[in-house]
C-alpha cells in the first residue's frame, strides 16, 4: 500500500512534512510506498493523507498528526486499515468534494506535482500534441466555442485576446502568465502551480502556439516560494522531455518559458503594471490603449492570461470547446474556482459550474457559518470587489448577475462574514489596503483612496459627521470615473456596496456612536454585570488606568470616563462578568 501526503503550502504549514518524515523514519525497509501530492483544497482538514492500493484510493485520512505515524505505517504495511478509522474523512466532509465539478483543479491533490510521468499518465501533454497538428486559427476557434473568459477577474473572452495578439504585427511576440495572485483571500492560482504545474505549462504552450509567441514568462508572487520551486522543477522536466525549447516534439514550433518572481505589489496584477515590473521598473500601469496585444512587453505584442485560465485550456482542447460551454449560463461558461475563507465551516478551494447560486456554495458546499454564527455578507473579488448581503444569496454565479449586485466575480476570493463583522470596519480595512497599494501615478487613486480611508477611520472611531456617507459616495464616483487602472477604478467597490446594503451600520456609527457588530474598539463599552461579579478584584488589578473600583467580594464598577477600552478586564475575568456593548 502507498501513503500519499498532501503537500501544498497549506498541508505543509499544518504539518504534513513532519508526519511524512516520521513515517519515513519507520519505513527504513521501504515496506510501505510513500509519495506526495499537491493540494486537494480542503484546507480545514489538513494534513491529509491518502491511502492507495494498487493505484486506487482506498481511504482518505484527515487531520493526521505526527502521533499517527506508527499507526499509518503499520496499517499500510499490514493492509489492515481499521485502526485508522478515527482519522477517516466523514461523509459530511466528503460532500465538500463530491459537490464540485473540477476542470482547472482536475489533478490537484491527485497526482505527484513533481513527477512529469504522473501528469502524462492522466492524459498530460496530449492536448499540445493534438494542437501541433492543428492550425493556430483552429485552436483559437476551439477556445471561442468554449466561451472561456479570463479568470483573473476582468472576465474578458480569452479567444479575443489570443486573436488580437495573433493578428498584431511584430517579429517577436510574448506570452505572459499572470501568477501575481494578490487578492487577499484568493489562493487558487497557487494551488494550481503547486499541485499541477504541468497543466499550466501545457496551457501556456497551446496559447503560445495559437498566438505565435516563442518566449513566455510566468510572473509569480515572491510570497509563493513553493510554487516557484515546483514550477522550476516542472519546467526542467518538460524541457528534458522535448516539450519546451527549440523545435517542440519535432513540430518546428519553439517556445521557452521563464519564471520571473514579483516583489510584493498588489498593483502588479494589473496587466500593464505587470509588464512594467517584468521590465525591471516600478510597477506602475500604462495608459491603455495601446493594449498589450499591440504594445506589451518591450513594446512587442504580448498576451497575458491568468493561471486558472491556462489551467482550463488543455482540458478544452481534449474534450472540445462545446463540452466546456455546455456548463454554465448564457453569459458565463464552464467552471470557476473559488477560495472559500473567513467565518465559514468548511473552507478551501471550490470549483463549480457557473450558474450555481452563492447559497449553493456557502451553505451547500461550505457548510454555512462556523461556531454557530449567522451569515451577514460575503466579500467577492477581494479589495476590488464588493460585499453581497443575505437577501441576495440566491444570486447566480455569473459575471453579469454578480456585477449587478455591485460586487464582481473577481479572481474568486469569497470571504464569508458573520454578525460579528462590522461592515464599516471591513470597508476601512480594504481601503487601508488599496491606499497603501496604490502606485501613486494618478491623483484620483493616490489621494482619493487616502481620503476615503481617513473618513472611514474617523467613522469607526466614533468621530463620523453627518454627510460623511454622501461625501464617500461622491469620492467613490469620482475615483471610479477618473482612475487610470483597474486598481483605482475598483477600489471604491467595497465602500459603495457596504453603503448600499448596510447603510444602517454607517448611520449607527455616525449618529449613535454605536457599532452594531461590537467590533470597533473605540465604540465598545465595557460594563460589569453585578449579578456575575464575585468581587475577586482581578480586573481592578489588571486595569492599566485604574478605571475599575470596588471592595473585595462586592460587585465592581467601571468608570466610563477613565476606561480606554483596552479589553484587559474582559480577558482577565473568569466569571464572564464583563459585558461588552
Amino acid at each position, binding site marked *: 500500500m502507498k501513503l500519499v501526503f498532501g503537500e501544498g503550502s497549506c498541508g505543509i504549514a499544518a504539518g504534513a512534512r513532519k508526519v511524512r518524515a516520521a513515517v519515513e523514519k519507520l519505513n527504513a525497509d521501504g515496506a510501505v510506498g510513500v509519495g506526495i501530492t499537491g493540494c486537494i483544497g480542503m484546507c480545514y482538514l489538513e494534513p491529509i493523507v491518502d491511502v492507495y492500493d494498487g493505484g486506487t484510493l482506498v481511504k482518505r485520512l484527515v487531520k493526521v498528526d505526527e502521533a499517527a505515524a506508527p499507526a499509518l505505517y503499520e496499517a499500510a504495511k499490514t493492509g489492515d486499515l481499521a485502526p485508522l478509522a478515527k482519522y477517516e474523512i466523514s461523509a459530511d466532509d466528503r460532500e465538500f468534494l463530491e459537490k464540485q465539478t473540477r476542470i482547472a483543479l482536475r489533478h490537484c491533490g491527485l497526482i505527484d506535482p513533481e513527477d512529469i510521468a504522473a501528469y502524462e499518465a492522466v492524459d498530460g501533454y496530449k492536448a499540445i500534441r493534438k494542437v501541433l497538428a492543428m492550425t493556430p486559427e483552429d485552436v483559437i476557434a476551439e477556445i471561442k466555442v468554449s466561451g472561456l473568459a479570463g479568470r483573473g477577474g476582468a472576465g474578458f473572452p480569452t479567444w479575443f485576446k489570443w486573436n488580437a495578439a495573433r493578428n498584431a504585427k511584430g517579429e517577436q511576440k510574448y506570452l505572459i502568465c499572470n501568477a501575481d495572485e494578490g487578492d487577499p483571500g484568493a489562493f487558487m492560482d497557487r494551488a494550481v502551480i503547486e499541485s499541477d504545474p504541468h497543466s499550466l505549462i501545457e496551457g501556456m504552450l497551446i496559447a503560445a502556439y495559437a498566438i505565435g509567441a516563442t518566449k513566455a514568462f510566468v510572473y509569480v508572487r515572491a510570497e509563493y516560494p513553493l510554487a516557484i520551486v515546483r514550477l522550476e522543477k516542472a519546467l526542467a522536466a518538460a524541457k528534458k522531455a522535448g516539450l519546451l525549447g527549440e523545435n517542440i516534439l519535432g513540430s518546428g514550433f519553439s517556445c521557452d518559458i521563464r519564471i520571473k518572481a514579483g*516583489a510584493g505589489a498588489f498593483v502588479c496584477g494589473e496587466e500593464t503594471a505587470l509588464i512594467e515590473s517584468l*521590465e525591471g521598473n516600478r510597477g506602475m500601469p500604462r495608459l491603455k490603449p495601446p493594449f498589450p496585444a499591440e504594445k506589451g512587453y518591450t513594446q512587442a505584442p504580448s498576451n497575458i492570461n491568468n493561471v486558472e485560465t491556462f489551467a482550463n485550456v488543455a482540458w478544452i482542447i481534449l474534450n472540445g470547446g462545446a463540452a466546456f460551454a455546455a456548463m454554465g449560463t448564457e453569459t458565463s461558461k464552464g467552471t470557476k474556482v473559488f477560495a472559500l475563507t473567513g*467565518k465559514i465551516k468548511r473552507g478551501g478551494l471550490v470549483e463549480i459550474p457557473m450558474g450555481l447560486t452563492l447559497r449553493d456554495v456557502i451553505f451547500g458546499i461550505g457548510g454555512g457559518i462556523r461556531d454557530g454564527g449567522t451569515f451577514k455578507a460575503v466579500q467577492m473579488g477581494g479589495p476590488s470587489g464588493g460585499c453581497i448581503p443575505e437577501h441576495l444569496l440566491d444570486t447566480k454565479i455569473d459575471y453579469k448577475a454578480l456585477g449587478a449586485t455591485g460586487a464582481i466575480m473577481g479572481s474568486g476570493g469569497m470571504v464569508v462574514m458573520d454578525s460579528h463583522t462590522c461592515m464599516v470596519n471591513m470597508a476601512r480595512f480594504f481601503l487601508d489596503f488599496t491606499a497603501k497599494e496604490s502606485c501613486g501615478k494618478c491623483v484620483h487613486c493616490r489621494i482619493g483612496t487616502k481620503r476615503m480611508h481617513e473618513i472611514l477611520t474617523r467613522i469607526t472611531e466614533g468621530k463620523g459627521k453627518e454627510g460623511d456617507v454622501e461625501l464617500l459616495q461622491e469620492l467613490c464616483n469620482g475615483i471610479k470615473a477618473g482612475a487610470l487602472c483597474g486598481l483605482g477604478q475598483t477600489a471604491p467597490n467595497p465602500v459603495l456596496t457596504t453603503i448600499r446594503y448596510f447603510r444602517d451600520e454607517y448611520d449607527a456609527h455616525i449618529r449613535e456612536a454605536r457599532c452594531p457588530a461590537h467590533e470597533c474598539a473605540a465604540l465598545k463599552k465595557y460594563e460589569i454585570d453585578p449579578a456575575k461579579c464575585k468581587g475577586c478584584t482581578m480586573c481592578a488589578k489588571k486595569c492599566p488606568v485604574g478605571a475599575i473600583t470596588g471592595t473585595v467580594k462586592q460587585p465592581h464598577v467601571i468608570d466610563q470616563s477613565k476606561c480606554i477600552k483596552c479589553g484587559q478586564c474582559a480577558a482577565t475575568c473568569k466569571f464572564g462578568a464583563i459585558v461588552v456593548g
Partner: protein
Amino acid sequence: MSKELEKMTPELRAFIEEWKAKPGNLIMVLHRVQQTYGYIPREIAIETSEILGVPLAKIYGVITFYNFFRLRKAGKYNIQVCLGTACYLRGGDDVLKEFEKQLGVGLNATTPDGMFSVEAVRCLGCCGLAPVAVVNGEVHGKLSTKDVENIIAKYCAEG
C-alpha cells in the same frame, strides 16, 4: 552609530555580471542581493548601480516600490503576521499587536538585541489556517493572542 560596511561577495558579482545584458534584470538582481544579505545594503546598491549602469535613484525607486525589499536588516527571527482578509477577520490584527506589545517594538522594527523583527504581510495563501504568522519560513496557524508568548519563548530558547 557606526556599522560595518557589507562587501559584495564574488558569487553575487558573478550573478550580476551574468544578468547584466538581459533586459528587465533589476528585480532579479535585487532579489539575489536580498537573499545574500537579508536586506539591501546601501553600499551594495551603489556597487550594483555601477555594474549595471542603472542610476542609484532608479534602484532606490524600485526597492521602495515593492513590499518585499527591505533597506534595513531584519531580526534573527523575522515574525511575519498575515493581515490578509481571512486572517484579519479571525483576529490577525490582535495577534500582530500582541507581538509588538510583548517584544516592545513597533511594526517593521527590530528588537535592540537584534533577535526579533515584526512585519505585517499580505495574504500568504494559507487562509485555511487563519490567522497565520510565519517565523523564518515556519508557519504557525490558527493563532490567538495567547499563543504569542509561547512562540517568542520557543525562538528565545533556540537562541
